């Protein structure tokens, strides 16, 4: 059985159907990419996976490692191993980066019946990971994402992912806002997290990211459904032709 199994997923926002029957399964260790036009439902899918309120699933199922995600609240899903690197990371005035990470790690430990993490060891671990991603000590001391540049926010998302070591990661347009060098650094960070037990779903508009993070499978999402699935060549094809085929096909 695949690590993540999405079957016939329908979801709506305020009564407006956005996802209209998504089937997707990702094997452990695999990286899948989703591409698709603006407004096609990519971020909606990421929020539905993460369990955000306001997204009503009307049909279908999502299983992670056989567990029914739709039965769980967002925090329970995170503890079960879901991680969403957001397209627009949220600012948390008054909550420092370190506090945020420590709370997140301790929430997991608490759920596993473990003691709170040793403060000194944790600080060291976070600093080491931050360094490889170009997140400075000063950023960790500041309130989460407050006053961060677009690129800094994205690095910060990947730092959280590196610290929390989730089973299944959704990266929603992590490449947007990153300069060329940062794209490389962040991609290396993501690649370092690729492992046999961990799967990823990478949402992007650009082939360039997929040169750095090479996916095993690429899907095209349009009008709330996966219209086509293929290998790396699909991204090149899209780069050439755009989404005209899919937009028209479904219209």
């Amino acid at each position, binding site marked *: 059985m695949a690590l993540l199994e999405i079957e016939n997923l329908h979801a709506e926002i305020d009564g407006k159907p956005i996802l209209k029957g998504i089937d997707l399964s990702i094997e452990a260790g695999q990286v899948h990419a989703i591409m698709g036009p603006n407004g096609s439902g990519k971020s909606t899918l990421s929020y539905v996976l*993460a*369990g*955000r*309120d*306001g997204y009503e699933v009307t049909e279908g199922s999502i299983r992670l490692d056989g567990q029914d995600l739709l039965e769980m*609240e*967002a*925090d329970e*899903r*995170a*503890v079960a191993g879901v*991680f*969403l690197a*957001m397209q627009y*990371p*949220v*600012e*948390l*005035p*008054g*909550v420092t980066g370190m*506090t*945020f990470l420590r*709370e*997140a790690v301790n*929430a*997991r430990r608490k*759920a596993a019946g473990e003691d709170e993490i040793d403060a000194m060891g944790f600080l060291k671990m976070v600093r080491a990971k931050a360094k490889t991603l170009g997140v400075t000590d000063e950023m960790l001391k500041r*309130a989460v994402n407050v006053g961060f540049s677009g690129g800094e926010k994205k690095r910060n998302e990947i730092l*959280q992912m590196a610290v*929390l070591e989730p089973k299944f990661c959704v990266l929603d347009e992590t490449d947007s806002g990153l300069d060329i060098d940062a794209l490389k650094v962040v991609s290396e960070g993501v690649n370092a997290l690729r492992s046999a037990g961990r799967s990823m779903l990478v949402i992007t508009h650009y082939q360039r990211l997929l040169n750095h993070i090479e996916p095993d499978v690429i899907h095209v999402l349009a009008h709330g459904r996966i219209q086509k699935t293929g290998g790396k060549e699909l991204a090149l094809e899209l780069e050439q032709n755009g989404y005209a085929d899919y937009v028209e096909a479904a219209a």
Partner: protein
Amino acid sequence: MSDKATLALLTGAPSSGDGPQWLATVRRTAVEHAERAGLPGVRTEAWKFTNLNALKALEPVAPRGTAEIARPASFGGLDAAELHLSNGTLTRADALPHGVEMVSLAGPDDAPGWVAETLGRIADTDQHPFTAINTGAFAGGVALRIARGATVERPILLLVDTQGVEGAAVATHPRVLVVVEDGAMADLVEVHTGSGAYVNNAVTELVIGKDARLGHYKLQAESGEAFHIAMTAALCADSSTYDNFALSTGGRLARNEIRATLDGRHIEYRINGGYLACGDQHMDTATFIDHAKPDCASHELYKGVLADRAHGVFQGKILVRPDAQKTDGYQMNRALLLSREAEINSKPELEIYADDVKCSHGATVGELEDDQLFYLMARGISKERARAMLVAAYVDEAIDHIQREPIRDAFRAAAADWMQRHIAGAPAEGGV
């Protein structure tokens, strides 16, 4: 017009024939003021959002005896010299740091000149009935003098505790006077606690001399059945710094009024605070900043959190007199409503008679942001914990202004303690 409630609160007041002549005069005037004014009603502008009917219905009695006072756990780690006022009586006084002189205000027959010259001269009784009642009726309290030029590092922690009695409401009128002489520096922390039903009608007068610095921090954590009515009145001289912070979490009805006259140039006045209320609590903060002279700065930030059916009131006034050119005044009250039934009345007010000033004020009301809650939960943090973290961060912005770190930590712990009891894990409709 002397109403029954005023008279009841004045019961047991030392007769004005007692004590030294200067005090008798002060008391007599105060009692006259109290009796003439009566307790404020909602038609009194300064009290229009705070209904005192429940207090007026009480038949207060004098407190019985005294009790041991324990610090709140959140202040446990603070190194400080303690003074205890139990039911208005001074019951413990640690050896005070060098440079600090203390006088008990219980029958101050032989009070030194500095007490006689200042007590009752800073807090006005004419316009403030509760202050008048306190002045007429106080049976105890402390006066502190920080000697000229003395730097007092160790904070003075004043624990004011009131114990209610079965079947009646106790009334106490603790009185505090602090004179910080020129060039002196000190920190005073007031903590108000208690149990049962009572009225704590407290008055603190402060004189801050030239080039002096006073840190004055107050935690109001009264019992859930208590009425807390407090007046802080400060008079600041040239180039002094007054760092004031107040955190209110207790009481059934609480009114904290802080009035400062910046009667000198180049004064730095910092007046920040927070109010955390839940259940049916009513919490009223009133501040008045009198910019009387040029070149002074005042900074005021209040952050409030109101849960359940709690009602918050913030009335802040800045007066800039004609002479007070180059005044730099900032005032902001922000309130976070955690339930639909919670309510805030904000009334910021600027009255400016000088033309070359920089003053701004404002008020905001908000709710917890869904996207922030989701962000925390998406990292595995429970909803309750996420709420508590966001609320704590909200209040922290005000607490951050406390200039002394160990004291800041104590207040942060007190706020965290409130979050723990009333936000995290507590039922949504948790009581006091």
